[in-house]
């Protein structure tokens, strides 16, 4: 039933296929890429796109196509893991805050408000500046920055759900708080949660590539999309293909998540349409 609705929503289906394609590229990167993404080839530096180098080469003769393919791996890894972190902590914090209410809720939500008082990318920049650039640190920084979005959604639902009769009935039957949160509250928040996860994946990719473009992501020579574009900036006249292709890859990938997210929202939560 659910899959049929996705199938009927053509844009959502297109988004899903795009994401699937990028995920498969990420997994199969070593087999799909035509060259070693790190191997310099000075004889072929700044070569324009050709049959041998689909997307051309950079100033060291590294193959841009292979670097973009391997960049998929880095972006997918960071975005999925950071959103996983944000979901886990956001859901736990939100559920505790909404379920217990009172001063616990007040303190937790003030902290969440404070985190959201920073422009997300600025906070991530600050954290990265302090911790230093690495794939691991980007994942943690983005995971942290996105926690409040999840906490807010779950808290809102938990607050209203705990007043409902079925929760009271469950309490009266002696269920533990933990059981109630997992059995009754979380399943009822799934719709907005799934939409938020999908859209956060899109944000995470944009943020990750942005950080890496600023030199705060995976350190060079790692073939992240942001790093390739950062290299491209100084070669705009000589090698415009370095600017064009990685950007198309990022836009396509983010577009996939956005299309799927929009479709899921229309299907799961018609009120928000």
């Amino acid at each position: 039933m659910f899959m049929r609705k996705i199938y009927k929503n053509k844009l959502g289906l297109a988004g899903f296929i795009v994401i699937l394609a990028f995920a498969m590229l990420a997994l199969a990167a070593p087999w799909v890429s035509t060259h070693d993404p790190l191997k310099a080839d000075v004889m072929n530096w700044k070569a324009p796109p050709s049959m041998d180098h689909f997307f051309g080469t950079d100033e060291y003769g590294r193959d841009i196509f292979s670097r973009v393919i391997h960049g998929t791996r880095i972006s997918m890894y960071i975005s999925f893991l950071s959103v996983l972190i944000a979901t886990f902590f956001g859901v736990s914090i939100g559920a505790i805050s909404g379920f217990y209410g009172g001063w616990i809720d007040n303190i937790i939500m003030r902290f969440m408000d404070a985190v959201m008082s920073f422009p997300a990318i600025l906070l991530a920049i600050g954290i990265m500046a302090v911790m230093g650039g690495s794939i691991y640190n980007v994942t943690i920084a983005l995971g942290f920055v996105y926690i409040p979005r999840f906490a807010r959604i779950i808290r809102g639902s938990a607050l209203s759900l705990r007043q409902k009769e079925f929760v009271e009935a469950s309490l009266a039957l002696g269920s533990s708080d933990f059981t109630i949160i997992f059995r009754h509250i979380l399943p009822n928040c799934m719709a907005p949660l799934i939409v938020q996860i999908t859209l956060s994946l899109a944000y995470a990719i944009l943020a990750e590539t942005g950080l890496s473009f600023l030199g705060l992501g995976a350190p060079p020579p790692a073939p992240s999309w942001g790093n390739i574009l950062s290299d491209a900036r100084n070669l705009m006249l000589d090698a415009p293909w370095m600017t064009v292709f990685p950007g198309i890859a990022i836009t396509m990938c983010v577009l996939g998540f956005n299309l799927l997210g929009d479709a899921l929202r229309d299907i799961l939560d018609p009120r928000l349409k």
Partner: protein
Amino acid sequence: MLNYSIRRLLYFIPTLFIVAFMVFFLVRLIPGDPIQVMLGDGANPETIAAVREKMGLDRPLPIQFGIWLGSVVKGDFGTSIQTNRPVLQSIRERFPVTITLTTLALLFSLLLSIPTGMLAAVYRNTGKDYFFMLLTILGVSAPVFWLGLLSLLVFSVKLGWFPSIGFVPIWEDFWTGLTYLILPAVTLALHMAAVVARMTRSSMLEVLRLEYITHARAKGLGEGKVLIKHALKNAFGPTLTTIGIQYGQLLGGAVITESVFSLPGLGRYVMVSIHARDYPAVQGCILFMALIYVVINLVVDLMYTYFDPRIEYN
């Protein structure tokens, strides 16, 4: 309305306090000895001890926070390690560039987004609507720095319409200054324009269904008047909130855009300070930008009561 405003102002205080605490704590996350990291490996122990004492880092954390907060309230954002000048002074020099850039971007994005969102809502589910919505979803998907690089590539490098490097402040020579700002501002505006257009479309759709719109039309009001005076005003609340939130994205995006276009604003200053490990400067800038963002959202929330007076009952 007054009641709500006062309550909103009171909420503002703990938020500010926690924001300040987070910025303070951020620098304490530096792995290893922050002073050693800032001064480099070659620094001798006496200098390190002197700087540590000067920055008060030899005292317990809560006291450090108290002292730091006290000086921030008095307008002392610390001293830059690189230039040995007060951080606030550098911020004051660079902030005008950033505020001009973001204001111009805000202007461009509103000019693009509100008419687009309204038109899409009026022509819902037609070719025009689909076309606009396709543009907006592309707009939210393309990274700002890539759009910046592309526009540099096309409009500066290939076509030569705009200068690609350098900067003239708009308050020294308005027209020349503008040529340096148009590309970055449009680049920065596109993402926000897309988000606001989508929000305007959906809140317009919600309002256009209501009976008072039918009534206004039945009264014989012109369609333009119905759309702008009756529909847009009521649909503007959610859009306004989105604009407030998006302004933060503009401030964050300015860090990236200023780096792409080499503009001497606050964002560029943050990046230069980060690469120089000038932590007091980084701390000061981040605190400053967060404060601006908090204040803007406060103003937006207060303005909301004008567009949606019902808010006072909640």
